[in-house]
């Protein structure tokens, strides 16, 4: 029975609670707890093999967790048609039957997604120049990515997850994707998850950042707050060290008497960039891509050292 409470708008599109997935001794996910606020564009970021796909597969009931729980708009997704009808998961490794053409994919999607927009799908197929007469079996990596983007955007699903959506796409097609995503998301707000290791081009689209590494959640935070506390400073090594003292330095490199340091400050409000500039140093926000590199390289090193 549905209760009144179930019908109210859930604050979170996805909630994971101590989610673990083991393959023998190997842990693809290791106790990940995470909440994705509804109505935002989220970035699920991390290196290849970090556990991003595993997390999304469990969230969309395509894989069972070894332990822990997951909820989609407040409901557990397994054998739950209502919850699953709200999700569109565009997998990087999506396979199609050998005989399928683009039209067959669209027909399947049309039947699957209640908010499907046929006109948008047609438009996108044209924009991405997908051949309608060719079998999908013969598609290039980029064309397969385009098929996923067409389905993902046209599904208008309340929760749309894209796993590495732009593999093989050229710069023109990628910018087409961002444009259409922004436009459609502005007109039809919903929750979007972009899972990727190619970050810089989308970094300003993301409103919340979640970083996974080695099956663990390293970070889950509002993008603007993260931007304000992740920065890099450069200048004379002594000044750099003075300004970064007592802060979490992700990376420090020196050349001659100069140093560059990447900092992840504890508090968003501390204005580290301003302080560094006042001290005569150069300072700028750490680009998200670099933050992830510094953060995950750091974690990998830490693990080796403690092993």
């Amino acid at each position, binding site marked *: 029975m549905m209760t009144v409470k179930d019908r109210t708008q859930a604050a979170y599109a996805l909630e994971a609670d101590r989610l673990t997935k083991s393959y023998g001794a190997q842990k693809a996910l290791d106790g990940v707890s995470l909440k994705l606020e509804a109505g935002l*564009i989220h970035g699920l970021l991390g290196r290849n093999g970090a556990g991003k796909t595993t997390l999304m597969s469990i969230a969309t009931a395509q894989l069972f967790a070894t332990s822990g729980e997951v909820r989609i708009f407040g409901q557990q997704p397994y054998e739950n048609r209502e919850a699953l009808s709200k999700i569109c998961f565009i997998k990087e490794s999506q396979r199609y039957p050998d005989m399928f053409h683009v039209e067959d994919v669209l027909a399947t999607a049309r039947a699957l997604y209640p908010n499907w927009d046929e006109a948008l799908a047609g438009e996108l197929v044209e924009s991405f120049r997908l051949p309608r007469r060719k079998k999908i079996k013969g598609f290039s990596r980029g064309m397969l990515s385009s098929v996923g983007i067409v389905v993902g955007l046209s599904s208008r699903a309340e929760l749309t997850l894209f796993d590495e959506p732009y593999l093989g796409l050229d710069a023109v097609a990628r910018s087409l994707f961002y444009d259409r995503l*922004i436009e459609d998301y*502005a007109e039809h707000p919903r929750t979007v998850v972009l899972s990727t290791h190619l970050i810089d081009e989308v970094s*300003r689209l993301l409103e919340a950042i979640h970083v996974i590494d080695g099956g663990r959640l390293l970070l889950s935070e509002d993008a*603007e707050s993260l*931007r304000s506390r992740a920065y890099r400073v450069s200048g004379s090594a002594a000044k750099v060290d003075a300004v970064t003292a007592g802060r979490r330095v992700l990376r420090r490199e020196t050349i001659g008497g100069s140093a560059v340091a990447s900092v992840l400050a504890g508090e968003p409000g501390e204005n580290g960039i*301003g302080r560094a500039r006042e001290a005569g140093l150069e300072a*700028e926000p750490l680009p998200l891509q670099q933050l992830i590199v510094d953060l995950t390289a750091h974690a990998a090193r830490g693990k080796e050292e403690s092993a």
Partner: protein
Amino acid sequence: MSFLKDDGRPIFQQIAEKIEDDIVDGSLPEEGQAPSTTHFAQFYGINPATAAKGVNLLVDQGILYKKRGIGMFVAEGARERLMERRREQFYEQYVVPLLREAEKLGIDSGRLAAIIQEKGRG
């Protein structure tokens, strides 16, 4: 319009400043219609919510105003008000860094004034 250079401030503030720039240099005239937030979002590759936040900042300051169902427009007197505000910020934003660099290079204030007199003509 120009590229969005990331100077460390929140993106919505930088967007608001871009719109201000366009008003100050006249490319966005008073009573003229501002681009939609979706358009801003696409142009700068940012989230539409962030673009809307930047636009709303200017609405709150009375620089832009909303015509229901049509869009955003530049308020009358917006240009003069923005220029007045920027004149106030001029010392902080331009003169202070100039003095700091001059000091580093051993250019005293007399010499600096002479350079400005000489090169700044015309």
